[in-house]
């Protein structure tokens, strides 16, 4: 088990010499005239917990099914461990999948379900029994082994499905919305369990999810998909803090977006003029041409109350509190600013609510630092 610090020093995707375990090369899948997956390339490394994130219909499930061999690409290649498996049928791939519906065989007991894949491998009876016991133990479902799927709760079924897909000791496990059918509380517990399991077994996981929180919690990296294409691939932190396009920025968490254009460049910062007030100065990683239409994106928790509002200050806005949402740990404030736009700000509730500084209809000034947001060009 690697620590976070160790990991950071040798992330494989940052190492140009690392060989990907799973390589997806310009894969396209067309259904009739619709591109479900459109020219996707991805490298996924040994031991990763990789998430394909996107809303329904974005092509993430189709991509996963192509990895499993349940669909074949219209064009492009798929390599697993260096072997081209593009045309290999599902039953011959060294990959297992946990289905969104779990797809447990209703006519078999838990035990028989878990044993199913092992029987196809022609393992001896003794080996099979041992492996089944091991899996049931691992997922803590030994007591349920004689039951049938219709006698199990949702959470129990999820464990059986997981045990079944892990029984063959695959090097690569595909999970289609692994927590989708569970209720919220169970989902949160299971998230951590799944990560622990993955780290313990050292298997590469590729999951599909529409739940950004789930993706953020579990993944080493996330690929955000839309309309069959990959919008951004990065670590959860990078996806959150440094989205590369409005779509990713909006898909993950909430964010304040100010449209404008570049009016000046100052070293690694740009000055952006927007409709909501004075220019904003933001750090930019890319050089920008004057006049480029851009969007300044700032997360609500990066906003703070401004103690000294100056008429010539940058990244400062004046407005009036219009709405307060109290969430316990934090409160979200909606502030109407100059141009009539609403800006969201999140403040941690350090004080009990009754003693909070801000109330409705109060005039406030807010600000943020040039490094706490990004300038998006698309």
């Amino acid at each position, binding site marked *: 088990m690697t620590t976070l610090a160790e990991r950071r020093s040798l992330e494989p995707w940052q190492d140009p010499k690392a060989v990907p375990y799973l390589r997806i090369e310009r894969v396209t899948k067309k259904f009739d005239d619709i591109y479900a997956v459109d020219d996707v390339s991805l490298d996924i490394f040994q031991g990763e917990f990789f998430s394909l994130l996107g809303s329904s219909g974005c092509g993430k499930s189709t991509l996963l099914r192509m990895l499993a061999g349940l669909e074949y690409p219209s064009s492009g290649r798929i390599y697993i461990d260096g072997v081209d498996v593009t045309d290999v049928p599902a039953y011959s791939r060294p990959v297992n999948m946990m289905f969104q519906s779990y797809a447990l065989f209703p006519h078999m007991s838990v035990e028989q379900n878990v044993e199913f894949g092992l029987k196809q491998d022609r393992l001896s009876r003794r080996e099979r029994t041992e492996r089944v016991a091991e899996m049931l133990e691992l997922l803590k479902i030994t007591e349920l082994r004689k039951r049938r799927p219709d*006698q199990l709760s949702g959470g129990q079924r999820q464990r059986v499905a997981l045990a079944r897909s892990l029984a063959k000791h695959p090097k690569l496990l595909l999970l289609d919305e692994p927590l989708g059918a569970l209720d919220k509380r169970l989902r949160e517990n299971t998230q951590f369990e799944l990560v622990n399991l993955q780290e313990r077994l050292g298997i590469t996981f590729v999951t599909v999810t529409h739940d950004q929180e789930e993706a953020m919690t579990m993944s080493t990296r996330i690929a955000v998909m839309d309309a069959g294409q990959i919008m951004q691939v990065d670590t959860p932190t990078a996806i959150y803090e440094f989205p590369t396009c409005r779509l990713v920025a909006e898909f993950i968490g909430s964010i304040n977006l100010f449209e404008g254009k570049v009016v000046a460049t100052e070293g690694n910062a740009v000055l952006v003029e927007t409709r909501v007030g004075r220019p904003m100065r933001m750090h930019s990683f890319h050089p920008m041409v004057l006049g480029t239409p851009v969007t300044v994106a700032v997360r609500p928790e990066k906003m703070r109350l401004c103690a000294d509002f100056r008429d010539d200050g940058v990244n400062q806005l004046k407005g009036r509190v219009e709405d307060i949402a109290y969430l316990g740990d934090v409160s979200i404030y909606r502030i109407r600013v100059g141009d009539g736009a609403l800006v969201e700000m999140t403040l941690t509730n350090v004080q009990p609510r009754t003693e909070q500084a801000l109330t409705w209809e109060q005039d406030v000034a807010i600000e943020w630092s040039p490094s706490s947001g990004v300038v998006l060009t698309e």
Partner: protein
Amino acid sequence: MPAPPPNRAKHTHRTSRLVNIGIPYLWLGLFFLLPFAIVLQISLAEPALAQPPYTALWQWVDEGLLRIEINLRNFMMVAEDDLYLSALLNSLQVAFICTLLCLLLGYPMAYAIATAPERWRIILLMLIVLPFWTSFLIRVYAWIGILKSKGLLNDLLIWLGLIDTPLAILHTQTAIYIGVVYSYLPFMILPLYANLSRLDMSLLEAAADLGCRPMRAFLRVTLPLSMAGILAGSMLVFIPVVGEFVIPDLLGGPESLMVGKLLWTEFFSNKDWPLASALAILLLALLVVPFVMMQRLQQRIEGGRP
């Protein structure tokens, strides 16, 4: 306004429950048990030259003296005479083979329909059901035209040069098989289709994902899961075919002795209603046993509860 007595709701609830449970039993009693009792009663009587042509089971001889006569000779005769036994066995054999043939033909058809694209399914199902729009009798008659020695089939085979002399198919057991399989195939396909169309295709994907080739996946997943449909279809074919009369009468020959024809002879030619009833009762008993067995099996497969 006074509140309704608290037990009123409970009472109506109980009444409606009684009605709900009662109706099926009433149905069963009226349309199964009562006719069965009448047939049973006739089977215990003796044939007589009267209207109706059998003796009464009981009569008041004197005040307070009821005479009940139970005649078991009909059952004894059916049991002793190998004619009836061989007719029963032949009927069972015909029904068994036809059920098997229907299953072998019907399963791939039902499977193909269930997995066909949505817009095709309704058309294919229509094609299965379409023959029902023509009278059953006329369809069986049509087979006479097809199978007879100068019929369509023989003409075609001779024209193709496959045979020189017409095949004798009509009035043989083969013709019965053809007629029965043709007539009862939809009864196999429809329940199988209903079952297979509910089959979760992701189960087959899961099987493939776990390393199962398509044929094995069919044997280990599709087949066991469609067992309820197979049993339902088989019962819908097997049970009526055992007592089938029209098809053996029209297409079969003198040697295809089936219990339906024997019943007809006893009832009409021999005017021996009691013997015909005894035969019917034994036939029923013979069918109820496998039926109950299949029901048990189905419960075990479907329910899966220990």
